[in-house]
């Protein structure tokens, strides 16, 4: 059984590296397309972490929705838009860089420190609760029904908004 534990450990670190590499690629790459693909790698890594935590259902939904749908739509949006030959000028130079870093990370660090210091971390000795597909489905449709439905309302709003934006664009072009 020790071999399994080593394998799981190796898998975990590989997935963490994939997630972080993708994240860094998303923020740091100069081409928008590379950034989106970095995002895809990150989402893949997160799906792998779900799998590692013993929930293949969540992992598959992550791949199906985020990698298979969201990333493809973003990539298509990027391709439909202009791909500038010259890269955007660098604004983060000199004194701006530390200031920008500080502004961006201040809130995150404050929340992070607050969360870590106030949470009691207990190591689970065994599998906590039922993570099967039946349990997930039942809790989504019974216990967390309101939240589940509210999310779909947000999606509906987004769809309506995008339709309105798209229609305006087309009419503007023809007139």
């Amino acid at each position, binding site marked *: 059984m020790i*071999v399994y534990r080593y394998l799981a450990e190796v898998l975990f670190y590989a997935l963490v590296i994939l997630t972080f590499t993708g994240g860094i690629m998303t923020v740091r790459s100069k081409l928008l397309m590379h950034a989106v693909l970095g995002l895809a790698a990150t989402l893949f890594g997160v799906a792998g972490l779900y799998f590692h935590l013993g929930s293949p259902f969540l992992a598959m939904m992550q*791949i199906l929705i985020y990698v*298979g749908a969201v990333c493809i739509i973003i990539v298509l949006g990027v391709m439909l838009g202009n791909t500038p030959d010259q890269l955007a000028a660098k604004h983060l130079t000199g004194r701006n860089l530390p200031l920008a870093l500080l502004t961006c990370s201040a809130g995150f660090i404050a929340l992070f420190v607050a969360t870590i210091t106030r949470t009691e971390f207990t190591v689970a000795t065994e599998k906590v609760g039922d993570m099967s597909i039946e349990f997930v489905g039942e809790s989504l449709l019974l216990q967390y029904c309101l939240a589940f439905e509210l999310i779909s309302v947000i999606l509906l709003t987004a769809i309506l908004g995008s339709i309105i934006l798209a229609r305006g664009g087309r009419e503007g072009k023809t007139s």
Partner: protein
Amino acid sequence: METFYSILPELIRIVICAVCGAVIVFGNALVMGYAERKLAGHIMLRPGPMEVGPHGIYQLVIDGLKLMGKQLVVPAKADPLLFRFAPLLAFAPVFVPLLVLPFSEKIQGFDLDIGLLVILALASINLLAILIGGWASNNKYSLFGVFRAVSQNVAYEIPMLLSLLAVVFMTNSFSLKAVVAAQSPVWFIVIQPLAFLIYLVSIVAETNRAPFDLPEAESELTAGFHTEYSGMSFSLFVLAEYANMFIVSSVATVFFLGGSSGIPLPYFEYSGIIWFMLKVYSLMFFLVWIRWTYPRTRFDQLMNFCWKYLIPFALVNLLITVVMVKLL
């Protein structure tokens, strides 16, 4: 040593699964490549490949060797990393769905309770690979091919999912084994004929094959998203296409044609796999047949057909199924 022996059966199982997956993917491409060219020939009243071996049966082996020997040309203006990465991304995910397919009652890699989700999730990666490949080529034909591929695949995924969902509602399970087991008296093609037809139309569009091969329409776009690819990087796309054909045909077999069920043959315990393969290859023959019989549709017709006919019909079919399941 103890730990080694405890892990050994699982290791052997994984190795067997991987080898069988590779055999299926490459063997399927060899058989289908030859069958497609031969069938295309006979449909067009010409003999097809005849030179290499009797009736040209070694044609695909020679073709494979030729493709391996060819140079991989990366265009000067292309994105070199993504251009090389895209064929791998198209080809790598096709092995995973093979693990959950129930080839017979006893031959199956892993029986997951989310078997269908695994297949659908991994199938969506193929589209991402096409996107990356077409964009990285930096060629206008590739880019147009990609636009078409994305709008077509995203649209046709919806009726495909809805038609499969009708069956899932009847069986209460995503597990492919349970779906096969639920069809022991009658196959679902009898109960869900509309869903089967919708699925059949959708898979032609999903695998980008004529009459819906708009992403690679030769007469307008040279070769669509793989215009710039040569040698093995091109053949990886082709291998992935044939493997995807095999997977979607297998899903149709499992969901509508009773999977591996059939008349049990005497003296052979695993007769299910023969029936399974027979059904899968009949469906693939059907796909080849319509490819070489019907002309290519126009793109707006294709999209209208999906959004105005297939999706409403699939939704109505799903609603009727749900009501009937609740009543019965």
